[in-house]
């Protein structure tokens, strides 16, 4: 690794592709020379600079995993936000973006550690754009032909608010996906729309006695509620890793 490839150094990414994911969000693929790949679950800092030198920095999880200099992000627009509307509405293919990373070595899942395959069960619980680092874990799981049992519980407002919908609709081997809708469920859906409850978690996730590694990600309020319920259900707090995105 040269000095300019270090995670701490700001690099210039070029937008290679964008895709509308939901009414309020899209994914962005960047080519970032020097990125050098990342572990599933890591994030990047993105820096925008106005013509007068004013800068704004925000963190975004990386949806891609593995080697290479291609990085996929997915961003949800907060109507009053400073940075997210720019990333969702204004950025076009060919634009440059400053990015620093990969960052963080804690909210990550590795298919193997020190040459030993990780086979323990993994429970992923995402709310809204909180799916982003979890998708990276799912992709890493699939790419490594991991035998670790994976379960995803994905909570979204309506079916139209799901990021990576078609990808998750056809789960890879060893992955079980459960959807939960908070505002509007598809017609004929058994579970009525509503926020995740402790009963939902009990019925739809790996039980505590299997000691799954649990990753919870999404808006701060969502993560808080889910993590507290999991502890009440007997999960060891040390096995629950969280990534709060902010907000209420």
């Amino acid at each position, binding site marked *: 690794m040269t000095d300019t490839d270090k995670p701490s150094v700001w690099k210039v990414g070029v937008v290679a592709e964008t895709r509308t994911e939901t009414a309020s969000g899209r994914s962005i693929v960047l080519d970032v020379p020097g990125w050098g790949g990342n572990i599933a679950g890591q994030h990047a800092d993105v820096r925008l600079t106005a013509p007068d030198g004013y*800068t704004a920095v925000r963190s975004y999880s990386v949806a891609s995993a593995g080697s290479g200099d291609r990085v996929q992000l997915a961003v949800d627009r907060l109507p009053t936000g400073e940075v997210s509307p720019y990333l969702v509405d204004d950025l076009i293919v060919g634009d440059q973006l400053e990015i620093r990373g990969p960052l963080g070595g804690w909210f990550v899942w590795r298919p193997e550690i020190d040459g030993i395959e990780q086979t323990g069960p993994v429970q992923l619980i995402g709310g809204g754009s909180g799916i982003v680092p979890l998708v990276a874990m799912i992709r890493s799981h699939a790419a490594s032909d991991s035998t670790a049992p994976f379960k995803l519980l994905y909570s979204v407002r309506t079916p139209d608010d799901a990021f990576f919908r078609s990808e998750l609709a056809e789960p890879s081997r060893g992955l079980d996906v459960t959807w939960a809708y908070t505002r509007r469920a598809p017609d004929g859906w058994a579970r009525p729309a509503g926020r995740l409850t402790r009963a939902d978690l009990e019925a739809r996730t790996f039980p505590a006695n299997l000691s799954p590694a649990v990753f919870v990600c999404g808006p701060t309020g969502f993560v808080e509620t889910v993590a507290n319920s999991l502890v009440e259900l007997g999960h060891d707090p040390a096995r629950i890793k969280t990534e709060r995105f902010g907000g209420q």
Partner: protein
Amino acid sequence: MGIISRGFSGRSREHNPDLPPGQYLTEDFPVLSAGPTPSIDTADWEFSIRTESGAVHRWDWDQLKSLPIEDVSTDIHCVTRWSKFGTSWRGVSLDTLFADVDTNYEYVMAHSYGGYTTNVPLEDLLDGKAWIAFEFDGEDLDPEHGGPARLLIPHLYFWKSAKWIRGLVMMDDDDPGFWEQNGYHIYGDPWLEQRYS
């Protein structure tokens, strides 16, 4: 400077003579949320001023509200770069609260419920420059914005307007409070851009 992001201007930072340097104008009232919001019942609320002699002047909620209440309309400037023009408050002037306080010390440490402190020179609190405010925009001040009552010192950066105010302690020297120990400027004049020390 890094590369310019095409079409990005950030929050509007217009030039306006009433706007201190480096500030942008906001219509809403952002919350500086450096920690959890303490919830304080006005039944338990108390405000005090303690002097070097050990004398303590105390007011409970009803006593505070029975003092002369002033309407204050003022611009406020937050160190995190937003400013808000023409905000309206109601509260009791520190001149009223200091009327019977006998002190030779020239500095004040403001203490808040929740443990924050911030230091201010006494002269910045007197002569109609500061209030204990409990209403914002015609409503009770909500806890996120420092309710039930906060210090209001509009001519300094807004972190000096201690939220959840509990009391003032007179000091001989200008000792730094919580924010000032953490790198924020000891005085905090927005017009001189005294953000950090």
